[in-house]
């Protein structure tokens, strides 16, 4: 087995590697969605997955959490191989996952939703801090989770995993449906988290949101990673990104 | 078209069958095939599992039996009356139940049927546990003697074909298109301006009426109307027939009815009679676990896989 990936080497030199994926394949029933993904993220990095609708970005996140039908290859989290690990054990390695469809529970109220995921580490964001960050949630804390507006649900989904103390975050389209003010605020929040040393893998459609805060970008197409772009290369590779993403 | 060729072959078989097999058994199969097809109209094509459908079968039977016996109605009028009664009950029960969906709908229909079961058990005109016995088959159009099994058979076959035609036509009608749309995406159908509950209700009434038709006919065949036909076990049996045959397919309920009635007939004769409930239960389990498309559904899959 070769570990001779340039990107991995590059990051290994600078920071501790938190997540390394090699030759990841994922399937939903008969359909083969991911065709050998390789990527690596170091501690404190914020990396995005870009691509068009259906490129397989969400699937990559779900595959990491073992939420797809079948997967093969290697996923090493914090030095632990997880490809054969049961889904419910993965979170306890410090993973926090915020799904695309938000996954707010209608049988629980806002506060119960917030308190639901078991803490995986001790140093999560406190509830007070969260309510300060998202005053809407505080105001609506006793209403049924799914009665929140679309955007409020998005906030809740994110807040929920911040509370658990997860230090590797997988965030899927978190700016979707949010008002521009909130989007700006989220960018600040992510920068703060990064500063706390959290590792973030971000799936984004909103390139303007992602560009200023990310360290690196992976571009996906048809279940492959077709390009890796570092923050400092953004200007020179604008053309390339345009052809991939149609920005 | 393939289907119509198949239909002609089946019709041919149905015409000569009574010379080969015991006609009363064949009539029973036809009645249940009609019942299961009517049930399947709801389950397979609207997605509503009515767990109390026997009540419509039995209502048709009781009303026909009572009128033929006590008011000397001709068999045809008796059957019409029974069908109308089932449709009327279906109209009321449909109004109450189509508001609910999925499993809720199943529970509500079951409980409503049980309510009516007790009415039939206690009402003075149904003969309670005895049921209505010795109902005369009478004369069709005043001169065809239905007490002759062969005459009766062709009469039943004609009724079955009529009912089956109605169901098919319903599925492939403008109304059927709307039903399909509702099953696919109910909120969207509403937003296009369809009152989905009205459509479900109409389908429910059609299904109830045809179940009543099956029950009325069955009553004349066996000259008997009894609690068996309104008991929830019967509601379970029709689900089983549809499941075994293949829900949502045209011929599935027919095949399922033949299979289950045939099996019961086989079991009731022999030593295995004791095991009839256990065997039915096991079939249920096996079908659900491994065989959800039913006989016809599985055949369709094989045909699709190999020939297209």
């Amino acid at each position, binding site marked *: 087995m070769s570990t001779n990936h340039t990107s991995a080497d590059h990051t290994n030199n600078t920071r501790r590697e938190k997540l390394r994926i090699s030759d990841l394949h994922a399937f939903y029933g008969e359909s083969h969605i991911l065709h050998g993904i390789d990527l690596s993220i170091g501690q404190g990095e914020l990396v995005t997955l870009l691509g068009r609708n259906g490129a397989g970005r969400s699937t990559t996140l779900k595959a990491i*959490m*073992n*939420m797809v039908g079948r997967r093969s290859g290697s996923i090493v989290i914090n030095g632990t191989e997880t490809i054969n690990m*049961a*889904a*419910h054990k*993965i*979170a*306890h390695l410090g*993973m926090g*996952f915020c*799904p695309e469809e938000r*996954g707010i*529970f*209608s*049988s*629980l109220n806002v506060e*119960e*939703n917030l*308190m*639901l*995921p*078991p803490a*995986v580490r001790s140093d999560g964001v406190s509830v007070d801090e969260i309510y300060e960050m998202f005053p809407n949630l505080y105001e609506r804390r006793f209403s049924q989770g799914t009665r929140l507006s679309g955007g409020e649900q998005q906030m809740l989904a994110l807040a929920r995993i911040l509370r*658990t103390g997860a230090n590797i975050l997988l965030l899927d389209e978190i700016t979707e449906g949010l008002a521009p003010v909130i989007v700006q605020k989220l960018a600040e929040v992510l920068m703060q988290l990064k500063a706390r040393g959290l590792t973030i893998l971000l799936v984004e459609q909103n390139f303007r949101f992602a560009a200023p805060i990310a360290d690196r970008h992976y571009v996906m197409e048809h279940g492959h990673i077709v390009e890796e772009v570092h923050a400092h290369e953004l200007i020179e590779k604008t053309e390339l990104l345009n052809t991939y993403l149609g920005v | 078209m393939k289907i119509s060729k198949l239909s002609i072959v089946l019709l041919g078989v149905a015409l000569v069958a009574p010379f080969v097999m015991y006609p009363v058994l064949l009539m029973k199969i036809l009645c249940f095939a009609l019942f299961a097809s009517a049930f399947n109209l709801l389950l397979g094509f609207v997605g509503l*599992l009515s767990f109390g459908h026997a009540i419509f079968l039995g209502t048709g039977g009781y009303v026909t039996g009572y009128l033929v016996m006590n008011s000397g109605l001709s068999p045809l009028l008796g059957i019409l009356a029974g069908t109308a009664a089932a449709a009327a009950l279906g109209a009321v029960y449909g109004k*109450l*139940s189509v*508001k*609910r969906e*999925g*499993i*809720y709908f*199943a*529970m*509500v229909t*079951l*409980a*409503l049927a*049980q*309510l009516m079961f*007790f*009415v039939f058990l*206690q009402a003075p005109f149904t003969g309670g546990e005895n049921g209505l016995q010795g109902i005369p088959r009478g004369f069709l159009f005043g001169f065809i003697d239905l007490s002759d099994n062969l005459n009766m058979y062709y009469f039943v076959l004609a009724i079955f074909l009529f009912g089956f035609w109605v169901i098919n036509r319903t599925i492939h009608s403008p109304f059927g298109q709307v039903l399909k749309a509702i099953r696919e995406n109910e909120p969207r159908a509403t937003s296009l301006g369809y009152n989905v509950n009205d459509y479900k209700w109409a389908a429910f009434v059609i299904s109830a009426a045809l179940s009543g038709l099956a029950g009325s006919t069955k009553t004349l065949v066996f000259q008997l109307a009894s609690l068996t036909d309104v008991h929830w076990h019967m509601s*379970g049996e029709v*689900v089983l027939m549809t499941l075994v045959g293949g829900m949502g397919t045209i011929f599935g309920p027919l095949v399922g009815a033949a299979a289950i009635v045939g099996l019961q007939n086989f079991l009731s004769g022999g030593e295995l009679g*004791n*095991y*009839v*409930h*256990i065997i*039915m*239960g*096991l079939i*249920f*389990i096996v*079908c*659900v*676990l491994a065989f*959800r498309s039913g006989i016809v559904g599985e055949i369709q899959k094989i045909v699709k896989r190999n020939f297209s």
Partner: protein
Amino acid sequence: MAEFLGINLFGLFGQLLVGLINGSFYALLSLGLAIIFGLLKIINFAQGAIYMLGAFLAYLALQYLGISYWAALIVVPLVVGLLGILMERFLIRPIANEDHLYSLLLTFGVALVLQGLFTHLFGSSGMSYPIPEAFSGGIKLPFMYLPNYRAWIVVASLVVCVGTWWMIEKTKLGAYLRAGTENPALMQAFGINVPLMVTLTFGFGVALAGFAGVMAAPVYSVSPDMGSNLLIVVFAIVVIGGMGSIGGAIITGLGMGIVEGLTKYFYPEASNTVIFLVMVIVLLIKPAGLFGKEA
């Protein structure tokens, strides 16, 4: 004295109390159903058969192993719960992703098999189980003679019902359960072993029916069809209470027992149908049930 407006008050009180006793069984059974439904979205049609199984196990345990009522009260629910766990694991889980109607049909099949099996093995004339020594005799109330065992039924089932309700509505475990049924994949991703939780919940719901079966053995004849008719009444109760509402199931169970008792007093002919009539009325006025949330 005991007459008021031409009504025999003693008779009325008696019927109310008897209604409460029956209501305790309704509450236990509908609670089990509501837990399984509310948390797993499965209608367990086998719940009645499992109640029967509980009673039979208590009977067999006493007959052949000399296990006392008290021991049976613990052991039988455990055994039944274990069977429920096996049932969930090997029958229900394989179809967990299919339409929930299939699980209804599957459990219907299980009910037929269980009932058929016991009829085959033990006939259907019924076995009798003695009332435990500790509860022989009764209390003389002014309006009736209340057998001690019947009083115990009310107390025991109230304790079990309230305890269960508290556990599900008021604890973190309950929140996990509710969330886990809504979106199991996400709960797994949060680090919770959902399949295990589902299995245990099913086992618990089933064990409640087993418990009710043991409770019933001394007062009702232990027979293979003791559960099947009761079950449909309990279904109606669950619909009235609002499907999936735990508290609703308990309150409605007790309430319907009392309504039935009153009907037996005022118009016995309708005692079979009154619960279904109530159901129709509730459906007309509040389709989601008395305690149900609108979808």
